[in-house]
């Protein structure tokens, strides 16, 4: 375990209609840790992740990433984070290489950029497809490319928003392998609907319901705390209690 890389205090998001999506939550993420944010649909997982990734403006609270304050150092924070959105968000008419290159250009980088792209493409097993147009990639390949774009600049924190959604078991397994590799260099914050994935990958996690944290800890601790067999049961319980 490493030291602290993300510190979130009383983070709140209220949308314009007065809908409180995230209600004063606080948590911490350590370096080289996979941190999961779980919860039923509409619980606020993606909203939290998008605020951390500087996509969405918090209504209140503070976020500190690698010692940088969200409100003052946003631009520097952006250089230190990677974001894998739920949708692949790629340019279909550009090749694999070009998709990486267009985003990589945004980051300052002292080394050889071509070598870096080559290294990352090999890491995500897309080197042979580097000249393939993205529109011709399979779902799993597109997701791996999406991850490659997010990590091309060697970020300290990577945010994954339901990264394995819609993938077949083989593709999911490949992504899991990638996440484990990436953890060696970066902290990872991920949301997921797959509880087996959370159990496999997450060192720590929070469970969100209606914008508030109802559990925080290691997967096994949370499962025991809810007297459940696994995280799946925990989420079902949380969802039912939410409905009541």
């Amino acid at each position: 375990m490493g030291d602290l890389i993300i510190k979130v205090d009383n983070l709140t998001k209220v949308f314009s209609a007065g809908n409180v999506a995230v209600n004063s939550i606080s948590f911490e993420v350590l370096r080289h840790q996979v941190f999961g944010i779980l919860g039923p649909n509409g619980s606020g997982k993606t909203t939290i992740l998008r605020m951390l990734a500087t996509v969405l403006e918090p209504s209140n609270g503070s976020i500190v990433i690698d010692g940088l304050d969200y409100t003052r150092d946003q631009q520097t924070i952006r250089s230190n984070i990677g974001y894998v959105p739920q949708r692949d968000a790629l340019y279909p008419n550009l090749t694999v290489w070009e998709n990486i290159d267009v985003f990589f250009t945004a980051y300052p980088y002292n080394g050889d950029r071509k070598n870096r792209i080559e290294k990352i493409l090999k890491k995500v097993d897309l080197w042979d497809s580097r000249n393939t147009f993205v529109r011709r990639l399979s779902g799993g390949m597109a997701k791996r490319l999406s991850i490659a774009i997010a990590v091309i600049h060697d970020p300290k924190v990577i945010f994954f928003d339901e990264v394995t959604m819609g993938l077949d078991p083989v593709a999911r397994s490949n992504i899991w392998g990638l996440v484990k590799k990436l953890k060696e260099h970066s902290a990872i914050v991920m949301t997921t609907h797959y509880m087996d994935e959370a159990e496999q990958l997450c060192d720590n996690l929070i469970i969100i319901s209606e914008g508030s944290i109802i559990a925080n800890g290691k997967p096994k601790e949370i499962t025991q705390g809810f007297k459940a067999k696994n995280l799946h049961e925990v989420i079902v319980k949380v969802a039912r209690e939410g409905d009541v």
Partner: protein
Amino acid sequence: MYKVALYELKKLLRDSRWMIIFAIQPVILVVFLGLVALHEPENILVGVYNRNDNEYSSQLVKSIKDKSGLDVSEFGSEQYLRDEINGDKLKLAVIVDIEKGKYIDGQIEIIDNSTVPEVSAKGVEAILDAFDDKSADFIKENIQTNIDSYIKNQEIAFYSDSEKSLEILGTTITSLGLPEAVTSQLQQAVSEVKPNFELTSTDNLDISRLNLVKTKNTNKDIRYFDFYASAVIVLLTILIALKLADTAITEERTVGTFERFFVTPYRKYHMILGKMIAYTVLDLFLATTILLSMILLFDVSFGPYWLVFLIAFISATVAASLGILISCSTYTIAESIQASNLVFFSFLILTGFLFQPESMHPVIKIISGFLPFTYLINAMREINLLNMGFGDVWQKLLFASCFIPIFLFGASLLLRRKAT
């Protein structure tokens, strides 16, 4: 920014279906416009009454009747002819009243316009009821040609101080007590179809007698289509360039790349200027295509090609920056398309292409005076129709070009990097 622009271009050009539509639409639109506008009117209903039946007037009537494109009927009663034109059954009523020797005695030298009324107290009265520009133009061209020809045949020559102020005499166009607004419209119609002529009336605003005085050194080869071609070039480039750029940002929002783009250290101006550079390159192609289509397919009479191209290119670039502004201020593709439609058709109405400035509400006229596209259309017309040069239009071009940074700055202000 260079990479953003480069990849933006690649994205667009690699979409083969998009590329085909983009490349052929200016050609198709020019072809349609050309075929619609270049075709001469047919069977325009003209009535003729020969008030003073003699050898000379009969010759003139015969020459009018022989003119192709006109469906000419000779009337035995002047009143009947006037009733027919008043009842909208004719486009033109011509009353011929000419006698050799009575008005015309060899050569008459016109010293100034004050002598005109005496000379043309009689002659040919043409009552024009063709308020669509094209028919009016056609009628006037044909009737005047006949009258000019007749005068020449009778060895009647009117001299003036120079070629530039040649008086076309013996021709009067009567408004027949039409309301002032219609009279004004008629005046406008004449000036529109004969842009190289200045319409004057010897009796102040009474246009019972009109003299068409050639006042400017004009391009003599222009045709009806040439006049509209100038505005068409500008409007086509605006339309295509605007529609090209109006979803530039909203498409990124829809696909999700917008969000990914702004999680990186890229700033708003990278996206806006990157796209603008890409569209500027496409605008070069667009301006070239439209210009070449006009010249090669319809032999449109233009001023200096480089200047016409420059105006078309500026038009496209201003429109592209406006498209980006629209795209930055909207959130979905549907919104962008609706907004750009609204903007384009507002410009179309306000620039004076469809409706003459004289008929505009004063406030609208002022607004029209601030629109970049009004200046671009006027500059294009001056270049093509009045043989003006860069020195005459550079201020208009500069004014219009100033809107490019204004629109882009506005786009930067309106582009919301974050969702709220």
